[in-house]
């Protein structure tokens, strides 16, 4: 029996178009139906199905379905569905249309089997997602969006250059395991690195994500970095460098997250930290480690989405998001509080929640390969996660000092979306086999053994103790309205100065040049113009000049040719 199935990206693009043309309830219905239809379509796609296409002289593979891409495919469908429910109250055509197009681009990237298709969707992701930031319609969001876009396109441009170099080197555009050999693969690696927020390349995430709309950030946190993790897992598994990059990614955001006031920015830092675990797993590269990375990507999308949704709900209801201005919201937003706590427990990797079953896989894999120090660092990072995401987010938003705010409970659609996400967190935590069965490699792994649970509980218990102690002694960094300097200070200040000086210099040089050029032209005109008094010898000077130039050229020709 032949099953008709189309490219997963196409379903979403079509959906985005229909959304654009409809209004009101119908629009919401269409937007909700798209991921459902997409999931059915995905189920119908036969295993290891590929679509090939010849364009120019290249053999492209716009669709390649295998275990790795399929898992991300399902994940993105589920996440989009949740995100759309969450955004149902937003009656803005552009946002729902863009969200679907963005999801479609992410799916396109995940299912692309060659570097050209990957590049196309890579850039499409950039130019669709940025509108979720612009949609906030503030000056801050606008400039952050432009910075975000430049960074994302830079990533695309690096990918394009890398792909071209690889094409010239190997005469193939297939997107397989690339490994770090040659300039081309390094550039591709760097391109993936920007999107997965490697240290020093991460500023776009913490800069732009908190500036997006309350629904936009949810979508943003789902796709871009996870597609990058997928791309790394596909192209660079077992690259040792990734382990060290991953460790740095897990550790350094903790310090920023602890002192940051904007709670969505805290989550953005936390996202870098979580992606660090995945990057580490990809770097280790064993079957178990890749499985761990992918599984962690799955749980991260759901629990990070849940936390982002909770913070979005707070922002939506109170209009504030700074930890210093919030607090005591549990009185009027009890349901959101509970759901947020579930997300916090998951991200902190409490046993019986999704973070535990995926993160422990990465940790075990790291230990199994003998990276003891790395394992220690990851352990430290796990404790840090608990601090800034597990405790800080719910504590400062919903408990802590009473801010006097009495907002209404989040709208029903938001609660439904968050409940679905929370259920997934708990289900995966309790029945990890459901997730494990979908992983790309068959690995017999059991997260719930005594050592794991005891170790994790000890870790969490003692970090909680540390938090309480620091709070009681007043040593915990208070939530202040402040600006924390990150690496983007360098881009924005030094980089901008540099750009200004180059621009000024070139402008000055250009003006001078124009002036001299004009002078030269005038002199030429003076030479060529016949002297008015010399009536008889009309144009002699001009004729002589032209003749000399002409003869000179001819001489040059003969000379150069001889």
């Amino acid at each position, binding site marked *: 029996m032949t099953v008709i199935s189309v490219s997963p990206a196409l379903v979403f693009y079509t959906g985005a178009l229909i959304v654009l043309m409809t209004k009101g309830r119908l629009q919401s219905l269409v937007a909700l139906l798209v991921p459902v239809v997409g999931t059915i379509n995905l189920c119908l796609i036969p295993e290891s199905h590929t679509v090939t296409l010849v364009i120019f002289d290249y053999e492209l593979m716009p669709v390649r379905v295998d275990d790795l891409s399929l898992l991300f495919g399902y994940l993105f469908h589920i996440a989009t569905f949740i995100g759309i429910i969450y955004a149902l109250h937003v009656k803005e055509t552009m946002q729902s249309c863009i969200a679907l197009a963005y999801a479609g681009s992410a799916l396109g990237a995940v299912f692309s089997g060659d570097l050209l298709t990957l590049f196309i969707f890579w850039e499409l992701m950039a130019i669709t997602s940025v509108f979720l930031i*612009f949609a906030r319609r503030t000056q801050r969001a606008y400039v952050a969006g432009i910075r975000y876009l430049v960074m994302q*396109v830079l990533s695309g*441009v690096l990918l394009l*250059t890398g792909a071209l170099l690889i094409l010239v080197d190997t005469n193939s555009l297939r997107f397989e395991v690339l490994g770090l050999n040659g300039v081309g693969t390094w550039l591709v690696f760097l391109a993936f690195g920007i999107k997965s927020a490697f240290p020093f390349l991460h500023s776009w995430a913490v800069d732009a994500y908190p500036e997006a709309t309350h629904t936009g950030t949810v979508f943003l946190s789902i796709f871009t970095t996870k597609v990058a993790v997928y791309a790394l897992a596909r192209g660079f598994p077992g690259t040792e460098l990734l382990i060290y990059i991953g460790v740095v990614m897990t550790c350094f955001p903790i310090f920023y997250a602890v002192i940051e006031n904007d709670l969505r920015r805290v989550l953005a830092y936390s996202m870098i930290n979580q992606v660090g675990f995945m990057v580490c797993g990809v770097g280790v590269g064993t079957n178990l480690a890749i499985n761990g990375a992918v599984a962690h990507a799955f749980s991260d999308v759901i629990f990070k989405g849940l936390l982002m949704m909770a913070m979005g709900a707070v922002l939506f209801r109170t209009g504030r998001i700074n930890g210093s201005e919030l607090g005591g919201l549990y009185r009027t937003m009890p349901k959101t509080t509970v759901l947020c706590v579930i997300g916090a427990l998951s991200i902190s990797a409490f046993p019986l929640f999704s973070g535990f079953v995926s993160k422990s896989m990465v940790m075990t894999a790291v230990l199994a390969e003998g990276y003891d120090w790395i394992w220690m660092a990851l352990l430290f990072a796990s404790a840090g996660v608990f601090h800034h995401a597990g405790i800080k987010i719910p504590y400062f938003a919903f408990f802590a000092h009473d801010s006097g705010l009495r907002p209404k409970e989040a709208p029903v659609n938001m609660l439904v979306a968050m409940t679905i996400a929370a259920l997934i967190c708990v289900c995966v935590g309790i029945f990890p086999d459901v997730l494990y069965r979908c992983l790309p490699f068959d690995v017999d792994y059991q997260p719930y053994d005594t050592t794991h649970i005891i170790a994790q509980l000890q870790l969490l218990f003692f970090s909680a103790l540390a938090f309480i102690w620091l709070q009681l002694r007043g040593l915990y960094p208070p939530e202040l309205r402040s600006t924390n300097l990150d690496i983007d200070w360098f881009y924005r200040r030094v980089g901008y100065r540099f750009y200004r000086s180059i621009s000024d210099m070139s402008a000055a040089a250009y003006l001078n040049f124009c002036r001299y050029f004009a002078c030269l032209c005038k002199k030429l005109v003076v030479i060529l113009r016949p002297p008015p008094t010399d009536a008889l010898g009309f144009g002699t000077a001009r004729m002589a000049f032209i003749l000399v130039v002409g003869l000179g050229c001819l001489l040059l020709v003969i000379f150069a040719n001889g």
Partner: protein
Amino acid sequence: MSASVLLVLAVIIPLLGSALVAVFSRHASVQKVVSILAGIFSFSCVLLLTQAVSQGDRPSIDLFIIAAGLNVSFSAEPLGIVFALVASFLWIVTTIYAIGYMKTHGGEGRTSFYACFAIAIAAAMGVAFSANLLTLFIFYEVLTLSTYPLVTHSGTPEARKAGRIYLGMLLSTSIGLFLVAIVCVWVISGTLEFQTQGILAGKASPLLTAVLCGLFAFGVGKAALMPLHIWLPRAMVAPTPVSALLHAVAVVKAGVFTILKIMIYVFGIDHLHETGVSLWLAYLAGITIILGSLIAMRQDNLKARLAYSTVSQLSYILLGAFIVTTWSTVGAGMHIVMHAFGKITLFFCAGAILVVSHKTKVSEMAGLGPQMPVTMICFMVGALSVIGLPPLGGMWSKWYLALGTIEAEAYILLIVLMLSSLLTIVYLLPIPLRAFFCGASAPSKERHEAPLPCLIAMVVTAVGSVLLFIFPQYLYDLLIQLIKP
């Protein structure tokens, strides 16, 4: 109808149209109908020719012979066909646009406007189909002269001054350098005919070839290689349809097309590639790309910004032409088409903004989006195509140009191309984005768009850019004949 007759018809029909426009100087509607019909007929001629050329035919015709070996003749080859297709198709669109534009923005001088326009197109077709350097030169000069009245159309002192610079620079470079180079070619090789392998291969020393390349590069002032780009931003005083068609498509593209054609058919790709003597010009083009972008960034006048962007983008094509690898040639040919569609859309939008809101400054355009959504969306599409992002045609030409730089191992130029994408984002995209998302200053939110013909024109070219992304294969098949005859 034989193909060689079509060649003549494609050039003659716009000329006839021009004559008819002059005859019916009192009947505005007849002039419009004549212009559009002439465009459609001319375009169909080129389409029929395209069919012949893509099957491998090379129809040619001698018009008249001046002296032995010096004749005015036409022939059709892939590159010329591509240029003629673009010019004649966009002429139709621009005429539709001009109908809407002239209605609201100054109707006087209509006859000379439409007549000169048609002559300019005829000249562009002549350039496209020229079979030798002499024919090319003649039509090149006709193009300069016929567009001069269009530049000075408004008759203001500023326009006159711009016109003087326009005419002065283009004529002096073409006579002082271009013609000299042509004479040199004649002296060296004894022929001016374009040939697939080039006519200078093995006849000129590398030094001479390098000098000749320079003479052609600067002699063809329409290609706007720095420092000979000065006329282009000045010429923006012309009415917007003129800026759109002539200074984004016909005139400037005639310039870069001429250079590309000379590189391929006079010097020969293989010859140049082996000696590498034109590479220094490619670096100059690289400098033009970056400087053009940097200057564009500081322009507050929208049309001036677009003009510098054109300077920068034209050098993409020159860069491809001067690198002379197989892929860079294909990329340069593609970029003629891609940039034409992208940039003409931008000019259409700039004109629409001018007509409706009387705004010329970029800084005044924040918040215009809700008022003119179609215009601003089209602007965004055009800008994305010029930047070279998917899903728009500009991506493919950039792909091949970049591939060409790698083939030539000119990695600095590769970096230039990539850097330029980022710079282009910074100076083009904020215009529509600020129009939509920084809208606090918008006085009225109600829709107020340009006249319908203007909207049709800009939507057609914007959709064209998208279609060029989805169906680039046909263009590629045509251009690949250049390197695999």
